[in-house]
């Protein structure tokens, strides 16, 4: 737990950034950019959650152990998704001649 009291200004800045990013992500969705739409939406969500974790949840001021714990959560989620998708993304390969 962080004992450090952050200035109120930090919280308001984070808040403003979050609202702004929400606006951007909604706006972007109305333009057709193919696969980019998905990537941008995901990137914005990642940014938003990062600043929530770092400032609202005080991870930035927490011990290294807390960093490791938080990182492990996302890493294991990545394992679950990546290995599952490794099946779905390569299923059609075998029937392709030459593979």
């Amino acid at each position, binding site marked *: *737990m962080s004992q450090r009291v952050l200035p109120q200004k930090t919280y308001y800045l984070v808040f403003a950034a979050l609202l702004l990013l*929400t606006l951007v*992500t909604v706006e972007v*969705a109305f333009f057709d950019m193919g696969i980019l739409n998905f990537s941008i939406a995901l990137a914005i969500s990642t940014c938003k959650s990062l600043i*929530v*974790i770092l400032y*609202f949840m005080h991870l930035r001021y927490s011990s290294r152990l807390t960093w490791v714990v938080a990182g492990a*959560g996302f890493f294991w989620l990545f394992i679950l998704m990546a290995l599952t998708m490794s099946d779905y993304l390569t299923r059609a390969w075998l029937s392709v001649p030459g593979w």
Partner: protein
Amino acid sequence: MRIGQGRSRLTEIHAVPAHQFDDLDQQREASSLGMWVFLVTEIMFFGGMFTGYTVYRHAYPEVFADASRRLSVVLGALNTSILICSSLTMALAVRSAQAGKRRALIGFLVLTMLLGSAFLGIKSVEYAHKFHEHLVPGATFTFPGPRAQHAELFFSFYFAMTGLHALHMVIGIAILGALVALSWRGRFCPEDYAAVENTGLYWHFVDIVWIFLFPLLYLISRT
């Protein structure tokens, strides 16, 4: 002055660690670590559904985009903003607890509860719309076009994911209510406010889940 004295007396009383801990620092670190580990389990809990969503969105991209357009982007964005506001008030509540400002703490906690309830209110309006439009998976589900089944999958995930998220909100609001009662009785002080801090972590986590749910469900394609 009287309140201040009361608080300092209370501080002395409850600034005693539980029997298994040597001191307050150890207790504080343990409870914070415990909360973070709990949040990791929550990531994996939602993670199973995010994985399922990813698999089917990859399999049926056009249908998912079509189905997604049936959700109200206005209500979704409004709810996102409300949840962000509630995260701000929650963060400020924790800050007030850190600083020992009891009245501000209670105020921010109540505000957080109100914002959380507003979110759930809007969510239930959305659910009602879906119900009227026969977009609730099950026997009554109807979706135009030949690929209704895959649209039903989208709505299955929509309801499962937002439903689980809403359940977390309900639990969060209940915990906030308990915190309000406890802080009313002066239970928290700058040396011991772990419950507030941990509830804050939980609330922000629920916010983060929504930060991902919103674009994945509402914003697949709006063109």
